[in-house]
């Protein structure tokens, strides 16, 4: 049954994506570790960490796309799940510092010693175990998503309201994590990590391994998301996105469908955060900032929402552009990002992948139509008319939740 599940899940496109990711997981570390420094094909150390970061962003964007592109929930708070996963991992990494911190306290992280705390707060329990940290990376964001989603979806908070509320959640979390009393390092967050499962976090080998782990995790979550979206549940998800009330009237429970997608998405985002922190070396409350969460949305939008490949491509492209801009023209980056938001929503509502995919499928259809009906080549191809994008009446009957 599982084989069948995966067989169904693994379409042709999926083989390509997973294959490429696994190839990267092998090739990049190999080139970094095995080739001598200065070799033209060698991936430099900083590039490994940078690419690893991009891949965690890609994972995050894909997680967002699962709820936005497929269920129509525009979450402006996905950064919160990412950051929570990151904090869960950061706590483990903090404990691994042990007595090598500035204050040399084997039990307490430096900032707690600094704040004159005498013992670990209860919620740091178990943070010295790697397996427990991994568990928390998934449980904490998942639980938050479950509780929030349970309340929000059951009371049918939808559309813009839901977006604003998710934004408020991440804003509230940001404020909370900025407090020193929270026991998560306040303003500075968690940083100055030394080692992960016994390996130095700065070593090229560890970095390469982290990159490979990220690529594999991205591939895995891609497979899972594909499996979900291609399943019957995936069809209901799309139905909820396009006409929630109709789906409800047919007899489905949209709130549970939404809740499922939301929780899965939050868990993937949490894992992405956990992989992000050791590669970047810091997690602080700034990750909760609402602006970050909105930026994730534009990654997915540029790549193409409603396609799982799109957000991966979008996240990598936009972040590459960000890296380039902030180095070359730091003042222009916000103009570019803002322009991207406007341009994508106005001119590229389906994103890069969606537009290309639409073009290709149009061509395929046209070809098929030509093959069956063989119309004279100079006659225009008659295509089913697309619903007009511009000026849809506001309260048009079953309004897609977008």
């Amino acid at each position: 049954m599982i084989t069948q599940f995966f067989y169904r899940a693994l379409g042709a496109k999926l083989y390509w994506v997973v294959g490429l990711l696994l190839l990267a997981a092998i090739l990049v570390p190999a080139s970094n570790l095995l080739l001598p420094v200065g070799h033209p094909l060698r991936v430099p150390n900083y590039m490994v960490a940078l690419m690893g970061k991009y891949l965690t962003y890609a994972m995050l964007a894909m997680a967002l796309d699962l709820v936005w592109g497929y269920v129509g929930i525009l979450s402006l708070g996905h950064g919160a799940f990412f950051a929570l996963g990151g904090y869960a991992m950061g706590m483990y990494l903090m404990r691994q510092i042990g007595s090598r911190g500035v204050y040399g306290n084997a039990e307490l992280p430096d900032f707690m010693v600094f704040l004159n705390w005498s013992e670990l707060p209860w919620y740091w329990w178990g943070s010295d175990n790697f397996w427990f940290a991994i568990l928390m990376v998934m449980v904490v964001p998942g639980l938050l998503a479950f509780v929030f989603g349970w309340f929000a979806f059951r009371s049918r908070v939808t559309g813009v309201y839901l977006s604003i509320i998710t934004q408020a959640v991440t804003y509230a979390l940001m404020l909370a994590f900025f407090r020193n009393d929270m026991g998560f390092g306040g303003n500075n967050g968690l940083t100055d990590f030394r080692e992960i499962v016994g390996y130095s976090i700065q070593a090229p080998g560890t970095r390469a391994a982290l990159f490979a782990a990220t690529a594999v995790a991205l591939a895995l979550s891609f497979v899972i998301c594909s499996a979900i979206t291609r399943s019957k549940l995936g069809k209901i998800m799309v139905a909820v996105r396009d006409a929630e009330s109709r789906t409800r009237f047919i007899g489905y429970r949209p709130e549970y469908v939404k809740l499922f997608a939301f929780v899965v998405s939050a868990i993937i985002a949490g894992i992405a955060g956990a992989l992000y922190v050791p590669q970047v070396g810091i997690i602080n409350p700034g990750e909760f900032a609402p602006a970050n969460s909105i930026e994730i949305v534009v990654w997915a939008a540029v790549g193409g929402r409603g396609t799982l490949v799109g957000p991966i491509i979008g996240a990598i492209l936009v972040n590459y552009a960000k890296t380039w801009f902030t180095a070359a023209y730091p003042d222009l980056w916000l103009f570019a990002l803002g322009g991207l938001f406007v341009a994508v929503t106005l001119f590229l509502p389906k994103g890069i992948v969606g537009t290309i995919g639409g073009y290709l499928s149009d061509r395929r259809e046209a070809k098929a139509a030509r093959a069956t009906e063989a119309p004279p080549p100079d006659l225009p191809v008659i295509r089913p008319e697309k619903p007009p994008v511009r000026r849809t009446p506001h309260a048009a009957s079953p309004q897609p939740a977008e």
Partner: protein
Amino acid sequence: MPYVAPLWPAGHLPRKGGDQLVAHLDARHLRQCHGNRLVAHVDARDLPPRGGDGRQARGGRAKELRLQFLRWLFAILLALTTLPASAQSLENLASLLPEGNFSDRAQTVAAIAATGDPRAVPLLEALAAGDLNVVESTGQIVTLSGRGDPLEATDAITGDSIGEIAKASVERIRVNNSLRRAVRTAIGQLTLMSPDANTRMTAARAMFQAGDPVNVELLDEAIAEEQNPAVLQVMREARAVAILRADAEPADFAEAVDTIAARGDRQALGILQAALSSADADVTPTIEQGIADIQSRLALLDVGQNVWYGVSLGAVLLLAAIGLAITFGVMGVINMAHGEMVMLGAYTTFLVQNFIRASFPDLFDWSLAFALPAAFLVTGLIGVAIERGVIRFLYGRPLETLLATWGLSLIIQQSVRTIFGASNREVGNPGWMSGSFDFYGIAITWNRFFIVIFALIVFAALLLVLKRTALGLQMRAVTQNRRMASSMGIRTPWVDAMTFGLGSGIAGLAGVALSQIDNVSPNLGQGYIIDSFMVVVFGGVGNLWGTLVGALTLGVLNKFLEPYAGAVLAKILLLVFIILFIQKRPRGLFAQKGRAVEA
């Protein structure tokens, strides 16, 4: 500056008119007058009598003139006899202090009091305390403080530090009890009996702080003569404090407790608590009652203060959210660039003020009046441009509108940062907006007060626009049923553009107000945007009253939570509260009624 005090017996100083006389004036007095409270003192007496100060001479105009003439005459006579000696200056009188016996000194003290010189007060106080010494070699009068030898010395009149002086080189000016009494009376005359209400007030306040039982008689005398009710009140309170610390009759004591309790502030509470610790058993209940009264009054005052803070925060939220609410209500569009409109309004204020400061400095106090229409126009036009340029292509896709406007907000923010720099810009407060006033013990700053008023005016104006104008009618129609409104011939695109312009313009007005209480920086808008959303979500759309109630509720709740939870936690609690609240009412407090499944 006319300065006549030395010529008149204390307590019977010349009144209005007589002050014009320059009877005794030397350069030293002039110097001391400038930048000294005394200037105000004399000026106050130059003014025509006011209702409050009952010490002004009464009687007909003719009598007044006659008196004035007599005073002139008398003054000139006195001036002729005393001027050559110039003996009446404080310095000269002080140098007489070491001489003669105690009764001579008492006369000198009376003369010193008669100078009305404010520097006399510390001099006399030092004398009564026995700190006054005369340097034997120079005859200089100095104040010695501390113990040991040598001692730190200061000039008794000017208060300048002189350095250390050996005990052997000075002689103490001795005092006895009758002299002390004379000194106290003199001080009282100098201050409590001063013709200037401000001086009397200051003296009474000082006595209230000191609470010395020996002042009771002096205060009694002053109370008997005092006719200014405000000063009288403080004198009574000062007397009450003095009585609380003396061994008074139980009846007097109870009355004193009542007087203090009626004052009802923290200081009064401290006085009563101190009195309680040393009081006899039979008066304890009286004091406890007084303390309880004050505490309940203080608690009430705290509530009042919190309500005011809450209302003032609520007014700011209302200003920031109301524009958002109408665009969201009419168009279903969340304008993420709304905060940037507020910011642009604040920067417009900055530009207008700069222009006025450079070109018409006299009009500076009116700069906000010019800034308001300018900000409304600038942000309103930008709003219309945004609607025509971007948003109209995105109707029916509210989430994408949200993203596009967010992009616009980034662009606007970065443009402002490029043009004006990232640092804060200085926007001045007009004179009428600075300072504060006291409202039944609640301190209210003028700028917050005017912002509350302004927010309410904007609210009322908007209500008027919505209810009484054609545009308002059309806006309401479009809010309720866009397609039906369109069928009735309403140009919905035009209504959309106008609504967006209006909403943005109001954001600009909010920016003018916020420039008065917040830093004008490119990040100004971001600080308000999430709070504004919360107000809109909480209050519900399509109804301005929802926004008003939402803003005030959130403001007051926030300020009530703050003392218990701290500012950050209060905000978090509020967000959690709103999230839970919309579980109950997903469309906000004042939801639009309708039959659509998906509004």
